[in-house]
Structures are given as C-alpha cells and as structure tokens.
C-alpha cells in the first residue's frame, strides 16, 4: 500500500490539477449538455425530463432547413478561405519573401485581428459595410455619386464568410509557415538546380511536406467553425431574417434569448454528434492513422 503510494505520488501531484480542470471544464459540460438535451429546462431552471421531445421539436422546426443550409455554406466557404488563404500567406511570407524581417512583419499584421477583441473586429466590419454614408464602402461610393447600398442586408452571408475567413487564415498561416520553414534548405537548392520553377517547387517540394499540417488545419478549422458563432452574432446576429443563422448560433439564441436551455442543449448535442462523425470520417479519409504510426526507418 505504502509503496504504491510512493510510486504514484509524483504522477498524481503533477497530473492532478490538470485532470481536475479537464473534468470540470471539458467532461462535465459534455455530460451536462447531453442530460439537458432531454429536459425541458427553461428560465425557471427546473429539471423536467421530456424524453425526445426536444429532438422532435427540432425536426419539426420550420427554420431548421435554412439553418442547416446556412451552416453548410458558412462552414465550407469559410474553411476554404481559411485553409487556402492561410497557405498562400504562408507561401508569400516564407518562400517568396526570403527576408525574414519583412515576412515576420507581414505575418504579424495578419495576426493582429487575433489579438484584437472580437467586438472591435466585428465593429470594423460593420463600419466597413455600414448602409449610411458613414460606412467606409458607401462613403467611397458617394465620392462617385453612387447611392448608398445596404450590404449587410443584401450580402450578409458573403460578409460573414469574409470576416471569419480572413481572421481564421492567420491560424493556417502560422502552422504552414513553420512547416515550410522546417523543410531542409538543400531541397530547395536541389529543386533549383534540377530546373524546377516556382509552381513545381510548390507542388513537388512544399506541398508534400506540409501534407499533414494541411490536414490538421483543415480538420481543426472545420470543427471550430462548426461551433463558432461569435462574429456572426456581433455582425448580423443571424439576420436578416435568419439569412445567416447557423446551428451554433441557433443553439445560443434558443438557450440565451428564449431561455429554452433544454432545446438549446439538444441543438448543441446534435452539433457534437455531427462534429464527432465528421472527425471520424476525415480521420479515415486523410489516413491520419498513418501519421501517428511510428516511422518504419530509424
């Protein structure tokens, strides 16, 4: 007994705080969400189990078709911008701009929105597209005598995708540029001597080397986009008339605007299940198992 305590003492002390945090902030919320999804909890905070009623309600929800469609559009297009724009930025700042200081400067600029509070970032976008003549785009239009346009009502989804895509690109940029920088310089020299142009270097040298980071960023961004809603909330709040309402935002609205905690949790649970199956699918598609397997060569 005593000796086993001796053996486990250090691991328990080292891992304990971390385990407690994981249980409180990761594990319990998932379980709570799952349980809440089967209750009709509202602002009175009563645990009232109503079996599958929340899910029946969801299926019958007249908005659900549009919301699902919005979610798919939002996630897919933002993901493409996130990943490809991130890749292009990484290429520009590591391969094409060889001077480290310049590329660091550009990368820092792209990181700025990450360290700005989301509210400020969202405000900038609102100001940019504001329908009055004080909005940046409309003030430019007025210089040419054009009437103001309400972009936020005519193209809300496009604006949401751009706002999320541009800020999200910095994540891919950082991961990809460090991956590109870890490619041995000799390989670029060899490709130069072998007569490879830029396109071939990107296709034959850079891309194969960042294949795993590329998959990682894709999966990571896909999952975080599926559950993210803060910029949509701040810029359009899902409007106009649900035009930019996505599943995660819908869950928030139901839970914190209509105080239908049970229903909101049910929607969240659906998101968790979708995320789980997408991860599983991508894991298989990308062959991630191969990546974490030990190498065959010493």
């Amino acid at each position, binding site marked *: 007994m005593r000796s086993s305590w001796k053996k486990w003492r250090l691991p328990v002390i080292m891992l304990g705080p971390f385990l407690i945090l994981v249980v409180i902030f990761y594990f319990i919320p998932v379980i709570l969400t799952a349980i809440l999804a089967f209750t009709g909890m509202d602002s009175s905070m009563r645990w009232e189990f109503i079996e599958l009623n929340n899910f029946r309600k969801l299926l019958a929800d007249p908005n659900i078709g549009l919301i699902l469609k919005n979610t798919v559009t939002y996630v897919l297009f933002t993901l493409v911008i996130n990943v490809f724009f991130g890749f292009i930025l990484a290429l520009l700042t590591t391969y094409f701009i060889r001077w480290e200081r310049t590329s660091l400067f550009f990368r820092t600029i792209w990181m700025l929105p990450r360290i700005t509070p989301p509210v400020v970032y969202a405000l900038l976008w609102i100001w940019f597209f504001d329908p009055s003549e004080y909005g940046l785009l409309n003030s430019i239009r007025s210089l040419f005598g054009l009437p103001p346009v309400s972009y936020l009502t005519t193209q809300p989804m496009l604006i949401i995708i751009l706002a999320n895509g541009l800020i999200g690109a910095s994540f891919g940029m950082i991961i990809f540029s460090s991956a590109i920088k870890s490619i041995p310089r000799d390989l670029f020299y060899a490709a130069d*001597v*072998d007569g490879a142009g830029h396109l071939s270097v990107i296709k034959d040298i850079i891309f194969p080397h960042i294949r795993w980071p590329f998959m990682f960023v894709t999966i990571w961004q896909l999952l975080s986009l599926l559950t993210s809603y803060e910029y949509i909330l701040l810029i359009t709040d899902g409007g106009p008339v649900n035009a930019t309402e996505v599943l995660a935002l819908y869950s928030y609205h139901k839970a914190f605007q209509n105080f239908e905690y049970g229903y909101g949790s049910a929607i969240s649970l659906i998101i968790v299940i979708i995320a789980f199956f997408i991860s599983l699918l991508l894991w298989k598609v990308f062959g991630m198992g191969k990546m974490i397997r030990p190498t065959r060569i010493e």
Partner: protein
Amino acid sequence: MKIELKNITKSFDKKTNTIDNLNLSIEDGEFIALLGPSGCGKTTTMLMIAGIYKPDSGDILFDGQRVNEVEPKDRNVGMVFQSYALYPHMTVLDNIAFPLKQQKVKKEERIQRAKEAAATVHLEQYLHRKPGELSGGQQQRVALARAIVKNPRLLLLDEPMSNLDERLRIEMRSEISRLQKKLGITTILVTHDQQEAMTLADRIAVMKDGQIIQYDTPMALYYQPENLYVARFIGTPPMNFLHGSVNNGILHLHNRKLPLETRLLTKSYNGDVIVGIRPHDIQLGSHGDLQLEGTIQFVETIGHAKLINVLVGDTMIRFFTNPFLDLVPGMNIQFSANSSDLHIFDGKTEKRILKKKDLKAIRKSNAVNQILPHAADSKKSG
C-alpha cells in the same frame, strides 16, 4: 565546359567577406577539388557557380559567357548535396526523372533515361523504393544519378561522401572517378578530406578564409607546397615541423648546420624558419645528411609499417619504420632525412623560402622509367 571565376567577392554580413576576390579557372572536362576546412567558403563558391547565391562583385563565366544573372535552372548543372537532398515523397525513379520532367521530356523517354542513369550507378533493383527505405550509400547513388540524368555541362559535388562509412567511401570514390571519366564532364568536388581530393581531382584549389591559397595538381601540392598551410593540410600522416633558423645561407636546426645557398629563393634570406619533413622521407639510422635523435613516445602498428612517434626537443616527429623492428616507448633512437626532401617556410609569412623542387627530377630519382618503361613516358608528369 570551361569555367572561370574572376575577382569573385561574396559577403553575408556586409562586414567580412566570405569569399574574398577569388579567381579560379577550370578547363573543359577537368575534375577539380575545392579543399579546405569547414567555413573556408568552398560550399559558398560552389553555390555561386550553381547560381543559388549571387556574387556581390566579380564575374562567373561559362565557356566565356557571363552567367552571373542566369538562374540555376538555366545553367544546366547537376549537383550532389552533402545531405543528398532527395525528394522524400518520390520514388527513386521519380527522383532521378525529376530534372527531365522539368525539361518537359516526354514521359516514356524520361523513364527510359532515368533507368539508364540508375543503371550507371547500379540502382536497378531499387527504382520503386522511397529514399527513406535506402541505405546512405544507395541514397548517395540516387543523388548522383539525379545529377547526371540531364547530361549537365557541369557536375557539382558538395562533400558527397562525408556521410558514408570508410569502405563505402572508397567504393564511391572509384565510382565517381569512373563516371566522370566516362561522361567527360567538367566536375567540381567540394571536400575537407585531403585524401579524397588527392585521389579524385586533376587539380586541387586549397582554400582558407575565402581565398585560394594554392591551385595545383595533387603531386605539385604534395611536393611543392607554397606555404605552411598547404604543407600542413596535404599528406597522411601530416608533415612534421621543426623550428630552426637560416643565417648566411646555412640552416640551423637542433645544433645541426646544413648549407642551402643555391636552393634559397632569395640568397640573402636570414631569419627564423619552420622546417617540414614528410613522414615518408625519414628513415632510421644516419643515411641522410640531416641527422636527429629523440625518444620514442608511442608506436602505432599499421601492418605494412610501424608509425613511430619520437620526441625531439619539444616537438613530436612521426615516421614509418619496418614493422618487424622491436621498437618500444622510451627507447632513444637516431634517424635522418635528406636535406633535399626538406620543405622550409618563413617563420613569419609562412611562405616557402626554397626554390620549387623539380618534379621531373623527382621522377628520375624514383627511377620511374625502369619500373614502367613504356607507360611512364605517356603519362603526364603530374
């Protein structure tokens, strides 16, 4: 292809010159080596010839044409890197065919030529493996095949054998030599291994601090080193050095006096000197006119000879003896060398102060014509 470097200067930090006003000329079909310790600028020089670095000033000429601004891909050079730099996700065949693919050679011909190149380096069985599944020696062959597949006008080898074990290195040395002769391609080898440079190159440029110290044939570097640096660098085991002085045409060395008069470059030379003697030029006993004695410190058995380490005064002298002699540390022995075999350098400038030895005379004294009566005359008196 004839290569010329004229007054090349290259600096990476704007303060010191990595390459300092370097001049080098390589004849068509010649095999030369850039030899020097790490950091002397030999790889930088090679990367400038490949076009990866641009010189700050000076001209690089290929067959008389200035190529300073020509991109690497348009220079038609093949290169083998120290790390081999194989494309890890491509098979051996794809690696070798890569330069041809860039030249838009048709797929069938590309594969055909890649296979031929692979065959010249004996890689036929490994065409569909990835570089990670090959041994170091095999990877090196892939790198070599990839460098020669497009029939380049110039072959650059950057320390190609430094990652191989000794046996494989000797094997690859003869392979590279054979390939270079067969293709007749102008070749530049960068190496810090003087033995590798000596065995492979027609001429060797010994480099130090971004400058070429001496550019000569291996035999000339061995028998006529221009300065202490070259003398120290060339030859295994390395040359022995003793401190002495020259006064009125007489060499004073460990209480011995040797007349030098006619052999001095400047008759009136006076001052401290460093005397170099190659281990092969020393023998036991007192046959030579420079006689020395000392205490044996250490004996290395090689098989065909014994390498004796003798302390003379406070300098260690190494030389070969008959392997069957019973020599043990602590013994006092006498040994000697011929004054004509001495290399003498100025103690301050470290430049040679003796006239160059005549290689033809050395040939004669070695009685080459009697050993090889016919072949000897046709060979260059390297």
